[in-house]
């Protein structure tokens, strides 16, 4: 008993002394019975830190750690070690932060931690790994999004378009030219500059031994002290009317995304009012939203229609967003899933008209009540695993707010329908919007839009009179599309530089 007390005291002493020299932040979510341990190492660096002409440097650096080797082990040797444990190392990179994620069963925790921490603290930076990881990013641009995923292409291009002349402009995965300019030396220098104690938060969840926390503090105090200056973010450029980017591509349907910057994020109280409005208008992958009900449900024009008030990336096959993509500046966006080319004019009119109706009329008391009730229940489902809970906790710290899920429970009941409708009028608009469409024969789409000629649609079966009446209004709805506000780009040029 005595002996163990002494050891405990010694341990504490170590903890204090190392803590003194350590700036590393640790976020713990301890759950003793949970056999799966998750690490989320968040680095306060993203594509905003990419030097001009080397777009993609942050992404490539993260890949060189998460999908590279350590001083002791090659990438191949690491794969061999992790394999029988089914342990996973994954990664995310975004505009402002990047994350390296590890997951392992408790049976193999100690050995896994050694490898995982070495990847970050003692990376190998192997020339072959560099070539492979660079190819991976280049192929993501050339083969995956340009050639195989029109919806993702449209969404990514929208962000690029919204943030012209702004640090958020360059994509988080880089550009073809930027990536081709990057050398392994650049990666090493980037790592040295940004992988500092003050710039890293180590998140850990599950049933880990408490002693591991001291070890993490000690190990990560080997990194240099300090924290790089955050990149200054100017206000995004003002949008004048409807500004179009049409991406010309041989495709059997048209993918549309549009949006504009908004000046608030989770740390602002109005965000929670806007959250209710957005859920009513276009909750992701549900039938609740007006857009979904009217475009898909009533008219069968496509597979889905949603809206967002912050950057959103879906977590695998779930309907929930991935955590750890926080941004100081956010944007409102609408995602119209591919529509038949012949209906592209009508659907864009319809979606913007719905936005106008939202801005002008707001929500009714009844819609407000039911949407708020939905969100109060639904948001509890966002954190079904410890891994996701940890991610949300870290994001909440990043925004400087209490735990986001708790904050929703606290803020939403305080709201009135007027708060929501005021927030809509204050932050949303239907006149100054950037619009991206991935489509065939872009020139004729532009002519249709500029001419504002009627764009009637036909149905294979009779629909109700009220829908037909509304269609008559939609097909004539005027969009302020001026020829000088169009840019047409070939798909091969997108994210080239």
């Amino acid at each position: 008993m005595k002996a163990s007390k002494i050891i405990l005291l010694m341990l504490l002493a170590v903890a204090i002394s190392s803590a003194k020299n350590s700036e590393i932040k640790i976020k713990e979510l301890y759950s003793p019975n949970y056999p799966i341990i998750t690490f989320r190492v968040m680095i306060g660096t993203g594509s905003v830190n990419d030097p001009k002409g080397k777009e993609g440097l942050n992404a490539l650096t993260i890949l060189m750690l998460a999908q590279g080797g350590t001083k002791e082990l090659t990438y191949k040797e690491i794969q061999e070690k992790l394999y029988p444990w089914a342990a996973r190392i994954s990664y995310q990179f975004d505009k402002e932060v990047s994350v390296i994620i590890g997951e392992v069963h408790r049976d193999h925790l100690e050995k896994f931690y050694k490898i995982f921490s070495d990847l970050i603290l003692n990376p190998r930076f192997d020339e072959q790994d560099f070539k492979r990881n660079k190819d991976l990013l280049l192929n993501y641009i050339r083969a995956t999004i340009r050639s195989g995923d029109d919806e993702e292409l449209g969404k990514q291009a929208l962000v690029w378009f919204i943030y012209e002349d702004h640090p958020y402009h360059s994509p988080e995965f880089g550009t073809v030219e930027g990536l081709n300019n990057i050398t392994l030396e650049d990666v090493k220098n980037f790592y040295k500059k940004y992988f500092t104690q003050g710039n890293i938060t180590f998140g850990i969840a599950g049933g880990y031994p408490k002693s591991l926390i001291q070890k993490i503090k000690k190990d990560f105090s080997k990194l240099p002290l300090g924290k790089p200056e955050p990149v200054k973010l100017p206000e995004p450029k003002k949008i004048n009317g409807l500004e179009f980017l049409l991406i010309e591509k041989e495709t059997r349907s048209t993918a549309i995304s549009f949006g504009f910057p908004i000046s608030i994020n989770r740390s602002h109280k109005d965000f929670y009012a806007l959250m209710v409005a957005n859920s009513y208008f276009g909750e992701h992958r549900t039938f609740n939203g007006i857009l979904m009900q009217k475009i898909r449900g009533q008219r069968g024009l496509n597979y889905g229609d949603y809206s967002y008030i912050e950057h959103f990336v879906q977590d695998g096959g779930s309907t929930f967003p991935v955590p750890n993509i926080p941004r100081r500046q956010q944007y409102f966006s609408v995602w119209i899933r591919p529509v038949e080319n012949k209906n592209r004019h009508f659907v864009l009119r319809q979606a913007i008209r719905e936005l106008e109706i939202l801005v002008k009329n707001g929500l009714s008391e009844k819609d407000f009540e039911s949407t708020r009730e939905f969100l109060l229940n639904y948001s509890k489902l966002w954190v079904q695993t410890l891994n996701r809970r940890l991610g949300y906790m870290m994001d909440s710290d990043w925004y400087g707010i209490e735990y986001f899920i708790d904050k929703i429970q606290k803020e939403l009941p305080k709201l009135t329908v007027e708060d929501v409708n005021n927030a809509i009028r204050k932050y949303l608009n239907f006149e100054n919007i950037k619009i991206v469409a991935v489509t065939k024969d872009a020139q004729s789409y532009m002519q249709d839009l500029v001419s504002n000629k009627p764009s009637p649609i036909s149905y294979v079966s009779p629909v109700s009179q009220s829908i037909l009446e509304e269609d008559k209004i939609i097909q004539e709805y005027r969009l302020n599309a001026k020829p000088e506000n169009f840019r047409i780009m070939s798909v091969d040029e997108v994210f080239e530089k």
Partner: protein
Amino acid sequence: MKKSIVLLMLLISNLAISQNKIFPFKINKVVLENGLTVLSVPFDSPGIIAYYTVVRAGSRNEVEPGKTGFAHFFEHMMFRGTEKYPEQVYNDILKRLGADSNAFTTADWTAYHIVASSDALETIIDIESDRFMNLKYTEEQFKTEAGAILGEYNKSASSPFLPLYEKLQDLAFTTHTYKHTTIGFLKDILDMPNQYDYSLQFFDRYYRPENCAIVVVGDFDQKKLIELVKKYYGGWKRGNYKPEIPVEPPQTEERVGHIGWKGKTLPYLAIGYHVPEFSTKNIERAAIDFVSELLFSRTAPLYQKLVIEKQWVDFIQGGAPSRRDPFLFTILTRIKNENLIDSVKNEIFNAIEELKTKPVPKERLEQIRSYLKYSFAMSLNNPNTVAYVVGNYFQLTGDPESVNELYQLYEKVTPQDVMNAVKKYFTKENRTIVTLTEEKK
């Protein structure tokens, strides 16, 4: 005190892995008089339940010509309401609950799933039982939904994966319904608006209690669950339809296809070998799951050579999904340059030939066993996944315990079993090859 804590921790840490049963939770099974199976698993997710309705019908059941894609289309129609709860009312109820609700269709099954608060159990049972027993939609609603299906096809069609799988299955199968993908042939999708009557027949055939299961996982009271299920589903009438799924004759010669892709792309290569259906008894079928790891896991020599060393491909994968009838072991890779297609193909074939002649070291099989067990155990971290697993093994065999039998069978796979399986199934005459490259202008 301290010691017992340590012991307890050890016990828990072993919980998921060392038992005879890979699935560490107890599955309660009750079958109602009308044949409806109720499977429930208590799971540590305070205040939350996952609720699945499993229908043992998928695109495999689309036996009539011109009706491909119907199982999936029908899944959409299930959201169109009943007399008691019309579409909008059904949606409003789910909205109030704040439930996460959706559905999916595969070749073999269709699942309707909800994750919601435990308090919502009775409401969920009420609205779900109602739509399975009393679904009602008009021809107009039916036609409108056909548009959404075309939209879903279109969103997938911008990716080379859909045409690749379409071509591969179309060539590899001559008779069995696995000839088409779950979304169906485009020509049939375009004709869907005209198939209202067939949709009613589809519902009548397959949406019957003896063909379905309710799976509930999470925080609930078992006694109350059974009472409620009996109350709400008790009146559901049995059906009697038995589909006759045509049997695929053995393939006797290699089949080859090509797709010219409009627009830029890297070349893709897909190869399919016919393999047996899911089984908890057939050791060769279990060995085929090991072949997938031996060739395509990140530590596999073939993967290492193609992805890491030579860097000829940016991804490669291969495996045989668990299916009710014999399907394919499918290999899919994206190649960095058109000139390398033949070299990549040869490397794959060489690696397969090596498995026919050189026994795999026992240690390698042990590593694979460990991987299979740990990756499965690590996936069971939320009620939704657990419900999915129970539903999936139920639809495959009628008994969710088959998951445990499968992993017990994995324990028995030997190097000889692997060799036998590769020799028998990975032959030239049993394979179909499809390539996709940029169309030359």
